[in-house]
């Protein structure tokens, strides 16, 4: 009883740490996105607040908190207030499933993959309710679009994840990552074993996080602010926070499922050279560092794509989702299954 209480307290402490890390990362991401956007568009980006503009995110946060929260008279006030809460809670709780290093994760579920898909599908409610409850035409259109979009791409995402599960034979993220160490060098990474699944997953991750080129729910040129047109002050800040945390968490799961997660490149070889490293704290730190490097790369890719591809039209979005991605991902799952059998036969 005593030990379980201590372990509960430790878990709560770790969860608290992860939530705070996510908050700090979100503010760093805001700064990073604006600076990289500036770099890509050949302009300086924010560089006035503090050295190199580093204090810009803090200025943003204080603005959000200190501004008036305008409540539209015609809105359903309770739902209007709860929608950003749903978004933040869902974004934060998906972070509980990220394996940071071998054995280091907040919630090590044996159905982790299913839990991830379940949680991300709840965030559709946040956006749709935000759009509907505002009682504004722009918001309603944004909410509707986003519901249809997230729902359509969830299927392909589920099938891409199935192809990963086929290879790993487990729904636990820790098992999925450790399974990718098996192929020796970098060949065990799922991006090598299952490249089409990887592409599909990255595409659907962009769509699920409502990032460009799939940012139709908040297309500025046509819908003003999309589903958060009627939000101001901290409630808008919470949507903003949830969006950046979702983006960060999506990068984590792209890396976890397809790019070896926390595995250091050539980890089995390094471990056989230096056996003392096995199970040490240094290894965990190195794994965490390698995870963060890979995640940073994908965070950059998200910004890069935003300024490279134009936004899709709505009918194109639906065509890509239903007529291309869904059949391709289904066939890919079957092909991967045959591949798993073939590699099993020749004993790899």
């Amino acid at each position: 009883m005593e030990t379980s209480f201590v372990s509960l307290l430790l878990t709560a402490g770790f969860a608290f740490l992860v939530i705070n890390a996510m908050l700090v990362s979100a503010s760093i991401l805001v700064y990073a996105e604006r600076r990289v956007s500036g770099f890509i568009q050949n302009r300086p980006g924010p560089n006035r607040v503090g050295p190199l503009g580093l204090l810009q995110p803090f200025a943003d946060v204080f603005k959000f908190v200190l501004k008036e929260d305008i409540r539209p008279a015609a809105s359903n006030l309770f739902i209007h207030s709860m929608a950003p809460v749903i978004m933040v809670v869902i974004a934060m709780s998906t972070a509980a499933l990220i394996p940071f290093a071998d054995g280091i994760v907040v919630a090590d579920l044996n159905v982790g993959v299913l839990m991830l898909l379940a949680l991300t599908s709840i965030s559709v409610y946040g956006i749709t309710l935000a759009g509907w409850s505002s009682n504004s035409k722009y918001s309603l259109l944004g909410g509707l679009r986003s519901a249809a979009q997230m729902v359509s791409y969830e299927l392909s995402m589920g099938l891409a994840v199935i192809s990963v599960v086929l290879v790993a034979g487990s729904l636990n993220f820790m098992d999925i990552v450790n399974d990718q160490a098996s192929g020796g060098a970098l060949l065990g990474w799922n991006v090598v074993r299952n490249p089409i699944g990887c592409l599909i997953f990255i595409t659907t991750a962009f769509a699920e996080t409502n990032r460009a080129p799939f940012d139709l729910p908040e297309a500025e040129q046509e819908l003003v602010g999309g589903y958060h047109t009627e939000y101001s002050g901290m409630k808008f800040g919470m949507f903003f926070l949830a969006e950046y945390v979702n983006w960060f968490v999506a990068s984590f799961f792209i890396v976890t499922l397809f790019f070896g997660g926390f595995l250091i490149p050539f980890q089995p070889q390094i471990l056989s050279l230096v056996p003392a490293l096995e199970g040490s704290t240094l290894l965990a730190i190195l794994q965490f560092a390698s995870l963060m490097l890979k995640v940073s790369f994908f965070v950059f890719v998200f910004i890069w794509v935003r300024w490279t591809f134009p936004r899709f039209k709505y009918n194109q979005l639906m065509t890509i989702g239903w007529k291309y991605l869904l059949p391709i991902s289904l066939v890919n799952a079957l092909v991967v299954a045959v591949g798993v059998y073939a590699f099993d036969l020749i004993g790899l």
Partner: protein
Amino acid sequence: MFAEFVPLFIMIVLALGLAFTLLKAAEILGPSRPNKIKRTPYESGMDPVGSARERYSVKFYLVAMIFIVFDVEVVFMYPWAVSFQDFIDGGAFLGVMTVVTIFSVILMVGLLYDIKKGGLDFEK
């Protein structure tokens, strides 16, 4: 059995705490000076016309319905994916592949029917 879900619940509770703290902080720190103009829905500076609670395109309902059908079918594939290695070890590869292929073909025929019927055509 539910022990491994406890950390996730802790995370959700902490996240809820964070969300409500943010809401409360904004309520305490931010000003509140509502007026009638400020509280009207935004329509590019014009007076709002009509209500937003209108009927909307039936296409969205169609997408939702098709999604439910396909999502349930995708969920059926998870048990197959997880225990696929056991099927191979048990020598049942061909049998299980036949079943899953028939299942996928049925799924695809449904999708094809829907596409031919124009259920996913957003151009009109």
